[in-house]
């Protein structure tokens, strides 16, 4: 049976497509699919770097994690860090975007100023914050003492360290959220505000409540998701400033995965943690999609 012309054309298109996408697909196999499968496989074992024999543990690796105090502590610390950074950077980003959007003259100036931390090397700026937060001669404590307050032991106390790291995280993420909200605000149809005014909406708060906030819904959801995911991935400031200390108070998820895998060389445990990490990211995206589906879509 000879192939129909349509089949022949489809075969030609398939061949052309794979000539274009083939190298990329191969890279995807090598750099993404196989490593992901390897992590999954390793997570069921007690593999250690340098140790020749590997025992299959099945799900024991995961039940061990449930009773692992370091891992539970890291999950708790990460959750606390996210709870501090994400809401603050989203709300402050939104507030800034609205103020800047309303501003006529200095719009470009303010936008660039608040964006500056986003393009500043985080490891370097973390070092600057370390100096700013130095307990005895750091400018922040000097200012506090000048104003009559007691100095704060920012990074050196297990009670304050997460809040101090969160402060740096908020400072860094603020400008990024702001430009995303600015894009969302620009996309709102101006006539909606005129219509709201005709309907008797007078105060700025009512304008925000009836038009801006509902119209920004999809943007807010995106910004919130990105903020949460980025905060979950906190690593640079921890590695630079605290190394998880003092007394494990700033051990976060990525920090303990790094420690287990590359310092203690417990590959099996680190892999199980990595799988939990991926599952957590998947969970966040599922929530995002759910909320997006429920939301009314405008425009």
């Amino acid at each position, binding site marked *: 049976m000879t192939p129909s012309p349509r089949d022949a054309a489809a075969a030609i298109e398939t061949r052309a497509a794979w000539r274009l996408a083939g*190298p990329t697909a191969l890279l995807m196999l090598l750099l*993404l699919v196989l490593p992901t499968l390897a992590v999954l496989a390793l997570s069921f074992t007690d593999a250690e770097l340098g140790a020749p024999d590997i025992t299959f543990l099945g799900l024991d690796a995961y039940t061990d994690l449930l009773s692992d105090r370091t891992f539970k502590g890291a999950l708790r610390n990460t959750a606390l860090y996210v709870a501090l950074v994400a809401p603050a950077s989203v709300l402050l980003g939104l507030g800034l975007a609205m103020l800047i959007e309303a501003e006529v003259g200095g719009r470009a100036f303010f936008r660039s100023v608040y964006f500056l931390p*986003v393009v500043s090397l985080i490891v370097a700026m973390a070092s600057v914050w370390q100096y700013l937060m130095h307990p005895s001669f750091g*400018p922040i404590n000097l200012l506090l003492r000048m104003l009559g307050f007691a100095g704060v032991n920012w990074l050196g106390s297990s009670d304050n360290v997460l809040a101090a790291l969160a402060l740096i995280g908020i400072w860094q993420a603020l400008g990024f959220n702001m430009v995303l909200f600015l894009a969302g605000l620009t996309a709102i149809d101006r006539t909606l505000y005129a219509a709201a005014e005709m309907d008797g909406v007078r105060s700025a708060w009512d304008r925000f409540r009836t038009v801006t906030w509902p119209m920004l819904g999809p943007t807010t959801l995106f910004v919130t998701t990105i903020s949460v995911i980025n905060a979950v991935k906190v690593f640079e400031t921890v590695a630079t400033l605290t190394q998880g200390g003092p007394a494990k108070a700033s051990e976060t998820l990525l920090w303990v995965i790094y420690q287990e895998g590359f310092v203690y060389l417990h590959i099996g445990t680190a892999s199980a943690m990595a799988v939990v990490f991926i599952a957590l990211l998947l969970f966040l995206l599922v929530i995002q999609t759910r909320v997006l589906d429920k939301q009314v879509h405008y425009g």
Partner: protein
Amino acid sequence: MSRILRLLVLGGGTILVLFPFVFMISTSLKPQSEVFSASLTLIPAHWGALENYTKAITRIPMGRILINGVIVCATIVVFQIVFALPAAYALAKLRFRGREVLFALVLLGLLVPIHAISIPLYAAARVLGLLNTLAVLIVPFTLSVFAIFLFRQFIKAIPDNLILAARSDGLSEAAIVWRIILPNAWPAASAFAIFSVVAHWNDLYWPLIAISKTHLATPPLGLLFFRAAEAGDDYGALMAATVIITAPLVLFFLFAQRLFIEGMTMTGLKG
């Protein structure tokens, strides 16, 4: 009246946001005694700039480290676009067997960050003898599923007629990608390039794992080596090093602010 209030808030915020930059520069100019003197003056009474900056560029091979960063980021972004654009074009405009599988893998890739698969990648790099080379900093990032995803969305919006016309002019599919699609997808490509450079210039996780030699460090890792070499609280020298290491991307941003902000906005919203 409300404008004055608004400017007060924005201005106050400006001071808070710029506070670290001001003290970074000021402290990098101060001798150690003034750093420890616990005063809030910004202009140093005695200049320590020469000593601080000399330490910053001699304790670690600073020039080499900055060049490493430029080489790594530039090579990564070129490879990412070269691999992503043809695949994105195929996914957006061609019908072929395996397309759904390929796209599902792209979505999987969006979910899995480098941190989660760094153990097998490290093991592979060790077996291949790639640890402590610039190549190991580049290879894992040559594939960007995010670039494929972003370009696919952008290419979908390019009219089919443009492609059909190119085909009837006798252009091959590869020629269409580079001569028709690339110029039309340029806004997406430049936005992605900015996003990629910012991300990889900042990345510490993978370099920390794969590199242990100072002269192969990227800027973030180089600064960690500097901090390790610099025992005690020599903040003047540390701030000088941070000024040098932060400057390239910040200057680039100041010269191309719109490109940066629009680029990060586009990639952020599509991410």
